[in-house]
């Protein structure tokens, strides 16, 4: 039973544990080792994490208080009120970006994508007006971006921030600084009314009553439209790209923490940790040097911070700056002021009658008011009292403000301290003006009311729900107008939206647009659009949500969400506050789409409950003003991150823990991945995300399991071999996971020795299962990340697998078996791991069948990720080796969140029923994610359970609660708002075809595993047939023989065909089972952008790159060649083409390709001399080479799997690889695109 005693490590003593007695021979008795002691877990630490999310979860989405119907209409109104607010706020991020050391690297506000993206999708009818709107939206950027870059001020910021509470832990300082970005931005919006009114006119009127607007505000619109030309769509990418590169340089702190803060926190935590470690110092005989070093390191930093804090800038006058106003003409300004005043008057006048909506709530309100501070949301009894953080926030804000006022081009000549005391003389005019525009709700803050609908002919309230409102309705008839126009009904006003233009698919030869496809913009009013979540993080397959399930069924389109919640963001508002304001019944986080009923109450947009605004929330740290809850950053940004209080943790935030489990059997050594891995690890050891508590460990296995004792104080790493794989145990539980910083030398020694330790191994077996069990045991006290490297089928111990693939069946057109796991061992293990907050990431580097279908389970359900390198060999297959190297770099250094849970909430009436991605669904809407990484995407299917007739907007909110690698508990919240429509045409107009395809792909994967591959294929085809025939039946006037699709769906058949030819679903073409399963895994867990490239690659012609339409990224010109359709007809022998398949690039060189190109770009004299295997473009000093390389680098950036490049010659055997991606062409086993269309047409006519 005992273990073998084998010393393999050169000159390392080896301990062979029997079944029990395990004390390492070296001088460090277990338990006395400093690292362990330091990390000793508090007693509550190992709590079962099952209820871990208690604070955030467990709140059934009870029906909120639907007090009375008028509430709804008001809700609409208030939305508009709120949403008009912040042109300026968009700027916030920009200013933040200028901070040196801040992560927010690029100058692009969150709504920018919307603005840009909306251009192509905008309705023809309204083009001119929308462009006005866009410019007005984007215009504020320019001054800010230009003028806020006064870096000198920012250091002062942080120091000021920390002054308030030098003794608190790091994140306060951090948050303050990140908040410091706000003031500069929001000041402009402080003069309450003006910007809103202005915004409102344009946005609301534009679609509905264009002429009226033109008449009344001609000067206005011109003034707005001129300053900044509409940015071309590509610039979005440019910015994004830039941001990403910024991220890369900053490596692990991608989220929004200025690097200076990083230091601060680290040191802080370091110093915090020292008290813990001190006692152990005295205990342990082994080297305490490291620990002494740390306080030393940290203290100077702290002291400098303190010192700097004395440079606090004296508070400047609270002078709001108003950039928008500066653009508008004076008369305009006056008018707006007047309006505002008018509103105010209205406000006063109508404040006597209690609003209907609130009557039913009054009693409750009174109760709630009392408890509001305590109960209405998760108020913490945390150490830092509220004023502190506000102080800090304010402190941080001065420099910003100063700089903004100093540098903004035309500050408001007459800054208004407060909207209320508007001079009386202007009153008459405004009241005239305002009456039409203001629909003042009694108790509203003056600023709210400017966001009103245009006064049209006062349409009498059509629905009974307004009846109770009669007085107001009569007084301000615009309200009705507003509520109807709010729900994105501008569709009706424009006769034929572009997305509904019928397209005859069989006639349209070039269906693929020249430029990349942009996600459709939800048809909301402009202000909501600006506030809405970025489509990169959050997309819905239908941007117009059908009102009823019946309507959805009629449309025959999948309804679901595509999420990329932990995306690397370049700017992200981080909010520290004692009170995270949430709905009391459904626990929704406050978001831009809630409505404020009055100053003190807000109505949840998901369950419609009316909640109190906590006292703390009344104060806006950004503007330093009281009574403007609607201007808080939470309400101004649809993507925010909260620093969570201790209410959100069941145990202290875990440290970052990494365990590497490495296959060292003969097969693995032969493949030679160890060299690459160890090299990458050595390079990136310092960049591993984590704080001073970071721990790391290594295990290797063949037929036995080897542990490595890296306890600080040893002279060399110590190898411990456990050969009892039937009952695995940990030889020295304390010293296998060691503190990265304390044992760094030992770790480096080990990594240097590891590649050569097993060179002569004869062991061919692989005991993966037992190794995983051991890893689980090792990780379970803390949780963390396990990275498993496996090169063959596990053949020993628990979880052993048999080869199930029959090579003869690879190209079978009938049944593809074994797509599901062979055993539940890995699934169980994953669930156990998930329960202990451990994620297992699998790197499969095998040349033969390794049953990925079974192995993948360990990652699928523990929220890990899967990497697969077929036929990996470090010398024979250099491209794979290079890919592994790059992937590892990204993998090791990317951001990571631990012990995460994600909850997705949606408006009452909608429900989620199926989730896709790597996680474990712990309860109906709670996804348990042991780890979350920025490359993970998720999909959710939705159904409509109750009719959405009484609402015009639906919202979705994902809240991701995680522990950052710095040991902070954070909540990232995304909120998406979409309109509800009642007609089928509108549903079709809002289809996001890419999202729909990705959701369908996910569903098809499920189907092929649970049922069969052919079922899944049929289902995909049926999806096209059904939706197109459903559309055909709505368009009666067209000839039925043609295959008609709305413009929004025109790519649907093409994409489905692409899916059918994708590795995951193709039949008839020889596909290895593992490849197929890997493709399926990727479909499940890739975010939409990457998945789309995988499904439908992009083809560009690159031998004639020009600077026409090029964009600039980091001072480099990136040419933008048009997209080519994926057909051999586009390939000419004279050309060179680049195909971007997401994880791989192909450059196809035509036979008679221009020699200049070959010479300039490839560096070879002619076609014949190009080698067969070429994976790099040489860095040649020619223009075309530069262009090609910058284009490829640009494509390569911002994707998780760094693509490998293959240069494919026209005659080389590798060209089949290339040609199989030409999905519009016919292959021996599959339709061409045209045939596929005919097939669909046939099916429809049947």
């Amino acid at each position, binding site marked *: 039973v005992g273990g073998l005693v084998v010393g393999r490590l050169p000159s390392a003593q080896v301990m062979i544990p029997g079944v029990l007695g395990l004390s390492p021979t070296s001088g460090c008795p277990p338990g006395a080792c400093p690292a362990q002691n330091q990390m000793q877990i508090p007693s509550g630490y190992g709590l079962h994490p099952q209820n871990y999310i208690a604070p955030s979860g467990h709140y059934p989405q009870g029906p909120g208080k639907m007090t009375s119907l008028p509430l709804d209409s008001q809700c609409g109104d208030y939305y508009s009120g709120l949403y008009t607010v912040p042109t300026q706020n968009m700027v916030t991020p920009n200013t933040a970006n200028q901070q040196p050391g801040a992560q927010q690297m690029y100058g692009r506000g969150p709504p920018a994508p919307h603005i840009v993206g909306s251009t192509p999708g905008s309705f023809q009818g309204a083009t001119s007006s929308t462009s006005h709107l866009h410019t007005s939206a984007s215009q504020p950027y320019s001054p800010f971006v230009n003028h806020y870059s006064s870096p000198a001020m920012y250091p002062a910021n942080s120091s000021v921030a920390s002054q308030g509470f030098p003794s608190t832990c790091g994140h306060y300082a951090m948050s303050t600084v990140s908040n410091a970005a706000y003031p500069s931005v929001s000041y402009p919006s402080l003069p309450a009314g003006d910007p809103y009114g202005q915004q409102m006119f344009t946005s609301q009127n534009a679609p509905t009553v264009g002429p009226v607007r033109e008449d009344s505000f001609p000067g206005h619109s011109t003034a707005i439209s001129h300053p900044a030309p509409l940015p071309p769509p590509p610039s979005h990418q440019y910015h994004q790209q830039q941001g990403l590169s910024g991220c890369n340089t900053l490596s692990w702190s991608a989220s929004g923490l200025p690097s200076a803060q990083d230091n601060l926190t680290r040191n802080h935590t370091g110093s915090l940790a020292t008290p813990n470690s001190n006692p152990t110092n005295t205990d342990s005989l082994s080297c305490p040097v490291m620990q002494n070093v740390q306080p030393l390191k940290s203290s100077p930093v702290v002291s400098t911070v303190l010192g700097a804090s004395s440079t606090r800038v004296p508070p400047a006058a609270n002078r709001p700056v108003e950039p928008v106003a500066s653009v508008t003409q004076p008369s305009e300004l006056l008018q707006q002021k007047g309006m505002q005043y008018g509103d105010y008057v209205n406000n006063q006048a109508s404040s006597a009658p209690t609003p209907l909506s609130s009557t039913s709530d009054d009693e409750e309100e009174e109760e709630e008011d009392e408890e509001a501070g305590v109960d209405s949301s998760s108020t913490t009894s945390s150490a830092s009292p509220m004023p502190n953080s506000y102080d800090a926030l304010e402190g941080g804000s001065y420099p910003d403000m100063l700089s903004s006022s100093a540098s903004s081009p035309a500050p408001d000549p007459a800054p208004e301290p407060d909207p209320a005391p508007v001079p009386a003389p202007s009153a008459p005019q405004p009241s005239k003006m305002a009456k039409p525009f203001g629909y003042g709700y009694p108790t509203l803050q003056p600023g709210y009311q400017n966001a009103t609908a245009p006064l049209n002919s006062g349409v009498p309230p059509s629905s009974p729900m307004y009846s109770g409102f009669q007085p107001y309705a009569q007084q301000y008839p615009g309200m009705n107008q507003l509520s109807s126009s709010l729900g994105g009904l501008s569709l009706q006003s424009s006769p034929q939206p572009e997305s509904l233009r019928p397209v005859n698919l069989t006639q349209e030869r070039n269906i693929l647009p020249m430029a990349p496809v942009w996600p459709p913009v939800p048809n909301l009013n402009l202000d909501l659009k600006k506030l809405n979540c970025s489509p990169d993080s959050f997309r819905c397959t239908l941007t117009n949500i059908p009102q009823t399930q019946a309507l959805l069924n009629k449309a025959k389109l999948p309804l679901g969400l595509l999420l990329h919640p932990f995306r690397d963001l370049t700017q992200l508002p981080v909010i520290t506050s004692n009170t995270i304001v949430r709905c009391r019944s459904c626990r929704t986080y406050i978001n831009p789409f809630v409505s404020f009923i009055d100053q003190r109450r807000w109505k949840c947009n998901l369950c419609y409950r009316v909640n109190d605004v906590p006292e703390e929330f009344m104060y806006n740290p950004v503007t330093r003003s009281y009574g403007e809850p609607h201007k808080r950053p939470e309400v101004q940004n649809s993507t925010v991150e909260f620093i969570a209080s201790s209410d959100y943790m069941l145990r202290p935030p875990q440290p970052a823990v990494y365990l590497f489990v490495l296959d060292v059997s003969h097969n693995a050594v032969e493949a030679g991945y160890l060299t690459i891995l160890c090299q990458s690890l050595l390079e990136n050891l310092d960049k591993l995300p984590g704080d001073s508590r970071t721990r790391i460990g290594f295990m290797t296995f063949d037929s036995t399991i080897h542990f490595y004792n890296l306890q600080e104080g040893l002279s060399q790493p110590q190898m411990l071999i456990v050969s009892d794989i039937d009952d695995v145990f940990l030889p020295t539980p304390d010293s296998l996971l060691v503190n990265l910083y304390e044992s760094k030398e030992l770790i480096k020694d080990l990594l240097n020795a590891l590649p050569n330790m097993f060179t002569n191994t004869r062991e061919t077996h692989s005991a993966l299962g037992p190794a995983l069990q051991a890893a689980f045991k090792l990780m379970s006290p803390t949780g963390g990340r396990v990275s498993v490297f496996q090169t063959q089928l596990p053949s020993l111990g628990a979880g052993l697998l048999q080869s199930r693939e029959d090579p003869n069946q690879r190209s079978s057109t009938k049944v593809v078996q074994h797509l599901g796991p062979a055993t539940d061992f890995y699934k169980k293990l994953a669930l156990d791991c998930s329960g202990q907050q451990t994620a297992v990431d699998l790197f499969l580097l095998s040349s033969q069948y390794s049953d990925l279908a079974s192995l993948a389970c360990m990652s699928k359900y523990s929220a890990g990720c899967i990497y697969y390198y077929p036929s990996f060999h470090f010398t024979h297959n250099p491209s794979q080796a290079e890919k592994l190297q790059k992937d590892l770099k990204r993998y090791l250094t990317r951001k990571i969140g631990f012990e995460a849970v994600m909850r997705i909430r949606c408006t009452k009436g909608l429900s989620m029923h*199926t989730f896709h991605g790597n996680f474990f*669904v*712990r309860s109906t809407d709670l996804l348990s994610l042991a780890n979350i990484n920025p490359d993970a995407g998720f999909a959710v299917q939705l159904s409509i359970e109750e009719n959405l007739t009484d609402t015009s907007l639906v919202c979705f909110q994902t809240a991701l609660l995680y522990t950052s690698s710095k040991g902070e508990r954070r909540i990232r919240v995304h909120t998406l708002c979409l309109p509800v429509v009642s007609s089928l045409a509108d549903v079709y107009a809002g289809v996001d075809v890419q999202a729909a395809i990705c959701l369908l792909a996910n569903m098809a994967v499920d189907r092929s595993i649970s049922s069969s591959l052919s079922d899944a294929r049929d289902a995909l085809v049926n999806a096209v047939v059904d939706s197109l025939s459903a559309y055909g039946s709505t368009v009666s006037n067209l000839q039925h023989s043609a295959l008609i699709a709305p413009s929004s769906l025109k790519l649907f058949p093409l994409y489905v065909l692409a899916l059918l030819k994708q590795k995951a679903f193709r039949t008839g073409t020889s596909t290895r089972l593992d490849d197929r399963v890997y493709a399926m895994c990727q479909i499940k867990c890739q975010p939409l952008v990457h998945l789309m490239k995988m499904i439908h690659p992009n083809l560009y012609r690159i031998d004639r790159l020009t600077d026409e339409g090029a964009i600039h990224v980091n001072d480099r010109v990136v040419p933008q060649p048009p997209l080519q359709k994926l057909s051999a007809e586009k390939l000419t022998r004279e050309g060179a083409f680049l195909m971007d398949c997401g994880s791989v690039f192909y450059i196809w060189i035509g036979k008679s390709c221009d020699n200049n190109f070959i010479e300039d770009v490839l560096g070879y004299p002619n076609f014949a001399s190009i080698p067969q295997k070429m994976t790099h473009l040489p860095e040649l000093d020619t223009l075309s080479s530069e262009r090609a390389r910058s284009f490829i680098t640009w494509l390569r950036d911002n994707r998780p799997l760094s693509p490998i490049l293959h240069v494919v010659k026209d005659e080389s055997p590798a060209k089949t690889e290339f040609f199989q991606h030409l999905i519009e062409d016919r292959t021996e086993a599959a339709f061409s695109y045209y045939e596929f269309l005919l097939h669909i047409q046939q099916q429809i006519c049947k």
Partner: protein
Amino acid sequence: MEAVVFVFSLLDCCALIFLSVYFIITLSDLECDYINARSCCSKLNKWVIPELIGHTVITVLMLVSLHWFIFLLNLPAATWNIYRFIMVPSGNMGVFDPTEIHNRGQLKSHMKEAMIKLGFHLLCFFMYLYRSCSVASLLPGSGRPCAPHQVLCLPSPVSRPLPVMSGAGCAPRERSYRGETPIFLRECWSRWHWVLGWVPA
């Protein structure tokens, strides 16, 4: 013999009813988020095989004792149980798989299934009860073959010498007889009795 068969079935059926109720309670716990999917499924999977065996035993028993009607009634349900058990994919952790139970409305369909089973078992329960009571009531009789109308025509079961039977088992029937059962109900009963009491010669 007959009595033994039905009394056994009765007890078995009781157990199955309790099991169904347990399934329903556990599933609704999961629905309401009181327990997590993992523990719910491991709880339920434990009882899948006992349920399957319990039901199969009744079915086989009915077949052996040549109660065709009851056998045929039980057959589909038993088949479904077995089918469901056999068709569990190799990678799943049982009929209830924690990783899938929240997907594709599986929770709802499991719930529905448990409900249907509960109804079915309740029906069977009364059937067995009736049979065992009627069989038992005839035991002390002259040994004539049981005629449905005879049972029905009895003035009052209370006056009859009740055999040693489980009181609980007889209670419902007693009530239904002692109370003034409407005529049409009796008619129904008589029909049913005929169906249930039909023993192949």
